[in-house]
């Protein structure tokens, strides 16, 4: 290889990556960094009209957030979404993956696609569908429950039921994605190993504990990290299904940020929320990775 062709290759490499890198810097890196700067200003509707109204306020936005009960409500709700949602979604996905991976299953591809389908549907559209499924009087969910003698639940109107109701929808919508990831991991478990364990008289539960779970433990962690991040980013679900209600029981951090920024035009305060959200996701992810390193 000559020096000339090396230079040509390097120039081509820069040329081909430059448009994408420029776009990433302008539309992703700068806004992300600016978010931190914006959070130290009082950018509001007056600054939006005339930039000379903009002032540097230090940590005032953060101080105000700490005193805002709705902010804590949003943090608390999001925490509940994580605490309840992660085990729920991981369990659901793992169950589906093990079912589809079963050696006795016929027509496997059909079931796999059917279970994955909700994931590719439009979130807003299926949220509208579920709002109706969960209708107190005419919803199919309460009808099914009534067959078992359970009294109608006011899913989206009762502050205690609204968060689980949204979680049921989120679980339905996302388990197929995680199922595919789990399936790939389950397929790395050698059939012979399972077979050998079976011949040695190991029951279903023993095989699950000693053969399957060691093989999929890293995947459980991966899926948990992805699900935590997804739970922190819930927005359209409460926006369409409950508008944050009832009694603000489904206001998520992102919903709160949206209202601060684009309903009340408190962009400085909204940016502070965005930055805190980022710190939360980062912290949880780091803790989970640390735990994983210890466990391995």
């Amino acid at each position: 290889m000559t020096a000339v062709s090396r230079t040509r290759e390097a120039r081509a490499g820069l040329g081909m990556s430059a448009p994408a890198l420029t776009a990433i810097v302008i539309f992703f890196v700068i806004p992300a960094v600016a978010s931190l700067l914006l959070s130290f200003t009082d950018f509001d509707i007056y600054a939006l009209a005339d930039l000379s109204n903009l002032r540097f306020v230090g940590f005032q936005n953060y101080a105000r957030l700490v005193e805002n009960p709705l902010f804590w409500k949003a943090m608390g709700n999001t925490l509940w979404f994580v605490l309840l949602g992660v085990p729920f979604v991981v369990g659901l996905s793992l169950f589906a993956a093990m079912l589809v991976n079963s050696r006795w299953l016929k027509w496997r591809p059909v079931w796999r696609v059917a279970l994955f389908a909700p994931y590719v549907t439009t979130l807003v559209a299926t949220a509208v569908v579920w709002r109706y499924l969960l209708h107190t009087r005419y919803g199919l969910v309460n009808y099914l429950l009534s067959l078992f003698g359970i009294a109608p639940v006011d899913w989206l109107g009762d502050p205690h039921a609204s968060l689980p109701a949204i979680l049921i929808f989120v679980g339905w919508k996302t388990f197929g994605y995680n199922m595919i990831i789990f399936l790939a991991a389950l397929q790395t478990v050698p059939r012979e190993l399972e077979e050998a364990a079976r011949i040695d008289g190991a029951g279903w539960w023993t095989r699950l504990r000693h053969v399957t779970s060691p093989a999929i433990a890293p995947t459980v962690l991966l899926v948990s990290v992805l699900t935590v991040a997804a739970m922190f980013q819930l927005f359209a679900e409460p926006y369409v299904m409950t508008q944050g209600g009832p009694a603000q029981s489904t206001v998520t951090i992102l919903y709160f940020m949206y209202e601060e920024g684009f309903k009340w035009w408190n962009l400085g305060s909204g940016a502070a929320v965005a930055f805190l959200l980022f710190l939360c996701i980062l912290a949880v992810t780091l803790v989970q990775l640390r735990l994983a390193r210890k466990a391995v």
Partner: protein
Amino acid sequence: MRVNRWTVTLLAAFVALLTIAPLLWMVSVSFMARGEASQFPPPLLPDSPTLDNYRMLFGTFGVGRFLANSVLVSTLATVLALLFTVPAGYAFATLRFKGRDATFRLLVAALVVPGQIGMLPLFLELKAMGLVNSYAGALVPWLAGIFGIFLVRQYCLSIPDEMLEAARIDGASEGQILRRVVLPILTPIIVTLALFVFLSSWNDFMWPLIILADQQLYTLPVALAAMSREHVQDNELMMAGAVITTLPVLILFLALQRFYLSGLLTGSVKG
């Protein structure tokens, strides 16, 4: 073992039916007459199927316009994303240039940062550029697709170096190599990436909600969300709206599912 085989399949069929039941019911209710679904117990099938809801959506609510907006925005997002990310992914995988590996490591680290973090400053940035309330503003995030670069790079790593060297010795320029030698090999991953971008931009809600203020520019999800807030009681109408919004992507996925699922694994497992 016979018993076992059928129990597992039956259980899978039951779970699968339960999973797609909301979608089937959405379609069924969309053909019901006004008010028909508001009964107890809820009817499973329409008494006499009607297209009234669809007629009303296209006639009175101008859903045709939103459908056209969605098709336009998603198609442009896909084309632009491919133009920006495919050459970059190829360059990061095979071409040697200064700072390549360090830059790529930064990009992978940035994958952890959710796009919503920068939404407010991005809004202000686009306002300064005069792009708020325009299709261009809705398209901008799709240009900065780090995931797409990652996906294409992963795929390009398997291209043998000798192949590119041979083309170079034959006197082909780097641009020609990309177009004539590399692109044909990349077809499967390009289809996968195109499908990803089209589906995600079609389904995207928060960013178009923020950037598109003018109702004439609304994409289907934004329009549907606005309609569903005003017409809470018109279940049959809303179900028809949901069908129009989600059926195109569902069909696209079913037709090209092989590409979608393989790309999903490259993205998550190796990521």
